[in-house]
């Protein structure tokens, strides 16, 4: 299936400060991959490189190849790339419009279809496990939703454009446990429909939702493997230390 992401010798730097150091990683398409690691290890930078949001930071430079279904993303039009690679942010960022308009914003921006919005809204909201809560007030402002609902709306918005890859940058960071549980239901429902890459601080969350886990430390990939295996029998000593809470220094600043 599409959504095949291959990272080869990726180096990302902000000015002189190298954040990602020669990272190579092949992600399983259609699976949920968690990226864990201490603060400042380059998780978010890696994620933002995958849809080239790093482009808007002027000092940011990249080397190496990231390919999406065999195409080098750095040779693509970034707008076309972002149409295939959706993203959900740490803080819910609904647009100042109604719930319905939020969901179809991407489709309208791509100008790919002229009708059938009604069905699309329902499908997308159902995939994000939000439909039952908002079906009676689709024209209400997205700001009227709770933070957890807003975050699921952002997922519905990302799914509405049928992306091949969905990037999630600590999506549950701003949510309470109940909202987190609902959000995770939504994430797990995406398994098999698109490749999901989720960055998280919460290793329990990684254990709960992901099929594969990558552990990043100081911009380097320490370990990558099926989640169960990585959590139960970590091959690397640093992974073991991190999972048991002993390895907490980021060291990214130095």
């Amino acid at each position, binding site marked *: 299936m599409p959504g095949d992401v291959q990272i080869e010798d990726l180096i990302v730097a902000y000015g002189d400060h190298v954040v990602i150091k020669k990272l190579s990683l092949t992600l399983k398409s259609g699976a949920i991959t968690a990226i864990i690691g201490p603060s400042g290890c380059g998780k978010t930078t890696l994620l933002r490189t995958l*849809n080239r*949001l790093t482009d*808007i930071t002027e000092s940011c430079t990249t080397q190496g190849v990231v390919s999406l279904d065999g195409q080098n993303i750095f040779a693509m039009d970034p*707008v*076309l*790339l*972002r*149409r*295939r690679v*959706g*993203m959900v*942010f740490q*803080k819910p*960022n*609904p*647009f*100042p*419009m109604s719930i319905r308009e939020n969901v179809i*914003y*991407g489709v*309208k*921006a*791509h100008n790919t279809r002229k009708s059938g919005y009604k069905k699309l809204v329902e499908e997308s909201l159902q995939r994000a496990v939000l439909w039952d809560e908002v079906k009676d007030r689709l024209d209400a*402002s997205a*700001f009227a939703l709770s933070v957890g609902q807003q975050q699921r709306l*952002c997922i519905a*918005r*990302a799914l509405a*454009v049928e992306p091949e890859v969905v990037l999630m940058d600590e999506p549950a960071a701003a949510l309470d446990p109940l909202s987190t549980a609902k959000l995770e239901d939504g994430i797990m429902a995406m398994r098999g429909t698109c490749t999901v890459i989720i960055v998280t601080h919460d290793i329990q969350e990684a254990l709960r939702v992901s099929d594969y886990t990558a552990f990043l430390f100081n911009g380097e990939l320490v370990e990558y493997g099926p989640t169960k295996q990585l959590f139960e029998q970590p091959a690397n000593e640093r992974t073991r230390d991190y999972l048991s809470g002993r390895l907490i220094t980021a060291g990214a600043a130095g």
Partner: protein
Amino acid sequence: MNVPGTRTVTTQLLQIRSLTAEQAVGGGVLALAALCVIGAAIELSTTSMDVIAVPLLALLFVALAGAAWYCRRTAGTLDREMVAVCVLALISIAFLLVMPEWFYGHDINAIIHRSFFDSVALAVVGTWGASQGIYLFLGGTPSARDISRYPIVLLPVVAVAVAYTMILGRVVDKGIPNLTLDAVTSIYRQTTTNEAGVVFEGGLRNQIIGSVLHIILTVAIALPIGVGAGMYIAEYPGIIARVITISAQMLRAISLFIIGSAAVNMVLWANHLTTTNPFSELVRGVYSANGGYSYPGAGSMLLGACFVSLLVIPVIARATEEGLRSVPREIREGSMALGATDGHGLLNIYLPWAFPVILTGVFVGAAEAAGATAIMVFVAGTGEYGVGPLHPATTLDVVIFQDRFGSKNFMGAMGKYQYTAAFLLLMITLAFTSAALWVKARAWRKYKGVYTT
């Protein structure tokens, strides 16, 4: 003096009010300081306090110095601020005493000039002293220090408020009595011809329509250009954007008279053209009189609006820029991450988001256009032959500034409406400003509490 078993008057007073000695001193300082401020006000208006300014300041100095000494004895530390007021009082007294004659003049105006310096010294030392009095009266605590700043902040506000009230009072006082139905419905025109010559009379109708039309035209011209410039500055930062920003700021520093004379130069150029040339009508304005013959005016409403819009464009551009900059980074990234182009985001999210701020800019600009008297009087005429975009310009400004015409006919008929015109212009401006506030409050409600901008 103190006979055992009896109490002094001071002690009794203190006990009645249950004040501490510190508070009593503070009250005294406050009273004296208040006298100083009142003295400053009287001084400014009547110049009769010249003789007692120095004694009053000296009394305040003694009271403050006493208070400082008392606080030093009880608290152990010298209050620096109190000492500073004392020093300022001493400097003021010395300055007022030794002020050389050449400094304030030899003539009859000398007393007025002296009074000016008296009043400044009284107001500054008095206000600062009052602050100290409040501080002591409230018990000398740190919070009392904060509260005691109040008069220092309040005095300039009151001074400005008084000045504005006097100006507004004059406009209302002299403008309202002539605000009759005839004044706002009739136009300035020639009525009869008698043996003494022609007789002109009339009202402000065309000027009122002209002012509103002029504001609408100006904003209509400035809005697309201003929003475009603001969009460019905010969304495409770089050397060109910086040049535009600096130029816009410099444009606001240019005297209105220079823009006005540029408009006049335009009219002078158009004077070479025949009346049938379309540019002549655009620039000079054309009116018909005497059975359908067309005559060129001294500047069309459109020309005036074009030049006044030079003032309004920077206002709208700035507002647009600010509004677009206030779009949260999260929303911009959210739009980009969905694969929307910058243009799509700009049209569908950023500009609607910036809309309340842009609208405020538009209304502020409209108020500015209404007040751009100095430009309009260069080109505006009497409005006796009608009003419209291609008619000779006429606004309420020309009635306020009618000296420029030196026309006995116009001044004779419209002179009484000078303040009425000012009042009406004030009302128009007030209407635009209120509309701005109302719209802004409504539009912002949409985003309340979700993003902090």
